[in-house]
């Protein structure tokens, strides 16, 4: 396999560096309205790229001097520094990429047992000198430049022009210095490890930083720009200029340093020159902590990553885990005991965020990964449902959003359907090829529907369903059933529900799902029942159907040892455990992830699987 994917962690790092640090060069200008945002990002992107290509190589070597790296170690170094940066960003601490990377490299060096701490001294000195350099520059330049501007340029028009052009020039210079100094952070380790040539390193690094600037820098520009006190245009200009100068000087020295700390120094220096307090001591303390904590954390992460990698490669971990290797007696599936719950935990936390049941993906996993294709796989799917669903059902009943009339109608229709499904599965679909085609069709429908609903959410720009308060107060069961929810009566034809449920039950019975997810669209869009009434009943009917389905598969008239229809209780339960936890985790995750994007991605994955399942049959028919 090509090793280019190892660059991904570095590119991501470059992107985030661009998104965060461009604020240090144009933040003051944009936040104070001197430069338009679009102008700023365009200029910054161009000059970052120029800086990295023209002078970026000067810093590349110094990182290499810390330790020798293999290709994958380079990847892990970037990954752990990226992770450290994310942690620090979440904690709102001003971390520096340079420090994180040096930490990661030292971590790897420690793993190899040959850390060169003497080289580290040079880095540490430069880090400490960065804010100090910023201060010195600002203090030294404040008076002379101020006098020059104030004496030399008198008319308001000319001064206006000076500030306008000045912020553009210092910003461009700052972006240039940023590119030249920090591109080594992005791709330096790859160049050192020999994965890519220096030229490609500079180009890829520069482009990824520029991409970050162009796509995601608005927020930081506003917040950083406003927080670093744009007292007046002249002071802001000088602070940025000092920062750029310091970065450029350290580019010549060959050490990547932190632009955030340089600008803090610049602002502080302006404050000293004007005898005002611009930066408080907490900021200073945070910077100081950054010098120590950032490298330590990212070093530890890198050490762990490399250790794990070697452990896997050497097979040592596999040996340790051998006692977990298990052959499931019923299904004959062989795997580690922790794999089924883990897989379903991940799968169902994602599917729950997108609003569908993990059971849909469980079957393809059994069929394609575990090579479990006999009817027992469908039955095992039922077991998964039995274990994974009860938590959800309980919640709906507790909140009074469980409609037993709807549930009853669904059950009456579904139960015979499941039996037909069972019969169909064993008589018509025991052959994996045909069964896959069937599964593919169901998945295709599901995938397209998921994408469709994602598109709907994009359009309405809403997405997340509102949490509705209220309980079901009164219900009547009959040919036309009625449900009263918060003084509003919803009427539906029980017979219609039963007939549709019968068809869905056939599909569900063969597939190994309760059919709730397939029923819901019909209930919501055709019968116009509200989502919060439908969900509870559908989920509960899925659960009860699953129990009966599992029993039918286990002791049904067509079951026997030769057909292998009986569910694998243990395997299903393990899947279910993962699903149960994953559903809860997914519900929590939903608060932080936009469901529209998740649905789109999920829909595309499902459609992809569906096409892979359907295609062999179709291509067979064609030829």
């Amino acid at each position, binding site marked *: 396999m090509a090793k280019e994917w190892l660059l991904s962690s570095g590119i991501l790092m470059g992107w985030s560096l661009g998104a965060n640090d461009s604020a240090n060069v144009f933040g003051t200008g944009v936040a104070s*309205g*001197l430069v338009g945002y*679009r*102008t700023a990002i365009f200029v910054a992107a161009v000059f970052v790229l120029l800086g990295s290509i023209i002078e970026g190589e000067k810093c590349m070597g110094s990182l290499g001097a810390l330790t020798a790296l293999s290709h994958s170690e380079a990847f892990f170094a970037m990954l752990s520094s990226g992770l450290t940066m994310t942690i620090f960003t979440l904690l709102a601490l001003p971390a520096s990429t340079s420090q994180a990377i040096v930490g990661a490299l030292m971590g790897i060096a420690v793993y190899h047992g040959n850390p060169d701490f003497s080289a580290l001294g040079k880095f540490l000195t430069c880090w400490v000198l960065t804010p100090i350099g910023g201060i010195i520059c600002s203090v030294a330049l404040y008076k002379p430049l101020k006098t020059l501007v104030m004496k030399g340029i*008198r*008319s*308001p*028009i000319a001064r206006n022009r000076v500030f306008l052009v000045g912020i553009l020039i210092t910003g461009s210079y700052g972006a240039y210095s940023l590119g030249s100094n920090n591109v080594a952070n992005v791709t330096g380790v790859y160049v050192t490890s020999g994965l890519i040539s220096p030229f490609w390193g500079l180009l890829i690094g520069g482009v990824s930083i520029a991409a970050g600037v162009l796509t995601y820098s608005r927020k930081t520009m506003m917040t950083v720009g406003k927080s670093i006190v744009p007292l007046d*245009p002249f002071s802001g200009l000088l602070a940025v200029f000092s920062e750029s100068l310091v970065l450029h000087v350290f580019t010549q020295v060959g050490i990547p340093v932190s632009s955030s700390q340089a600008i803090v120094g610049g602002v502080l220096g302006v404050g000293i020159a004007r005898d005002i307090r611009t930066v408080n001591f907490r900021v200073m303390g945070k910077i100081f902590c950054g010098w120590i904590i950032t490298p330590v954390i990212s070093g530890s992460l890198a050490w762990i990553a490399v250790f794990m990698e070697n452990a896997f490669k050497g097979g040592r971990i596999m040996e340790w885990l051998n006692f977990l290797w298990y052959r499931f007696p019923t299904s004959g599936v062989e795997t580690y005991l922790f794999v089924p719950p883990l897989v379903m935990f991940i799968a169902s936390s994602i599917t729950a965020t997108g609003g569908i049941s993990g059971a849909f993906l469980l079957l393809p996993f059994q069929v394609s990964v575990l090579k479990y294709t006999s009817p027992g796989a469908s039955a095992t799917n039922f077991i998964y449902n039995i274990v994974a669903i009860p938590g959800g059902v309980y919640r709906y009943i507790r909140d009074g959003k469980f409609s037993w009339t709807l549930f009853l109608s669904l059950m009456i229709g579904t139960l015979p359907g499941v039996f037909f499904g069972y019969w169909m599965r064993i008589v018509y679909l025991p052959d994996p090829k045909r069964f896959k085609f069937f599964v593919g069709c169901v998945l295709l429908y599901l995938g397209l529907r998921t994408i469709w609903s994602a598109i709907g959410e994009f359009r309405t720009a809403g997405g997340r369903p509102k949490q509705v308060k209220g309980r079901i107060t009164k219900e009547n069961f009959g040919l036309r059933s009625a449900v009263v929810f918060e003084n509003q009566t919803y009427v539906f034809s029980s017979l219609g529900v039963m007939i549709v449920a019968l068809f869905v039950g056939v599909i569900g019975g063969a597939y190994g799902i309760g059919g709730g997810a397939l029923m819901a669209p019909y209930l919501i869009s055709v019968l116009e029942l509200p989502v919060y009434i439908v969900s509870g009943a559908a989920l509960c009917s899925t659960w009860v159907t699953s129990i009966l389905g599992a029993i039918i598969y286990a002791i049904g008239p067509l079951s026997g040892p030769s057909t292998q229809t009986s569910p694998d209780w243990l395997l299903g339960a393990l899947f279910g455990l993962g699903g149960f936890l994953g559903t809860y985790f997914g519900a929590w995750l939903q608060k932080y992830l936009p469901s529209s994007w998740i649905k789109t991605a999920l829909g595309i994955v499902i459609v992809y699987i569906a096409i892979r399942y359907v295609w062999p049959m179709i291509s067979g028919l064609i030829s």
Partner: protein
Amino acid sequence: MFKRFFYSEKNEQLVLKEMRTHLELLEQACRCFVDFLKGGDKRFLEEIVEIEREGDIVRRNILSTLYKGAFLPYLRPNIYRFVEIIDETLDLLKDKARLCEFISIPPILLDDTLQIAVLNTEMVRMLIIAFDTFVAGDDLRERVLAVRIYEKRIDDLYHDLFLRITKVSVEDFWQGRGLGDFFSLLVKLSDLVEDAGDVLSLLHLSLS
């Protein structure tokens, strides 16, 4: 994208030129008022109304040029404010002129009124000088102080006038009310011009 950085000077020059015109109109209106007080010729009052209209045009011109992107965004609010203050002053003069069309100033107050009007004119003259200093980029502290001295003098005069105004007998309510309005407008003018001077020094400071 970069247009602003290369040819924006024209707009800025236009703004400054129009601001100066605005101020000149104000001075002209003040002079008209003095002339009216001296001779009682009501044609001067009509002229003030004319000037006010012209001032409106100038003001709109300035605002639209600013909107097109003259000057740095953070300077614009103060320029807007300056222009608005001058416009308000012109408005005030117009109101005063309209009032004068139907009230008659009591003879015993006429002398002081005239003096206040003259000082107002002088004050506007000072403001113009201060504005020119601003355009030249020189320190305008002294100029703004001169504006303030006039304001103080006018205030003193007004205080004195105010004590005597109670002794004036009026024919009816509307005469009295018109007279009261007239005198409060008379003194408010100098307040506004003083504010304009302060905004001007603020503008000067924000460019340094």
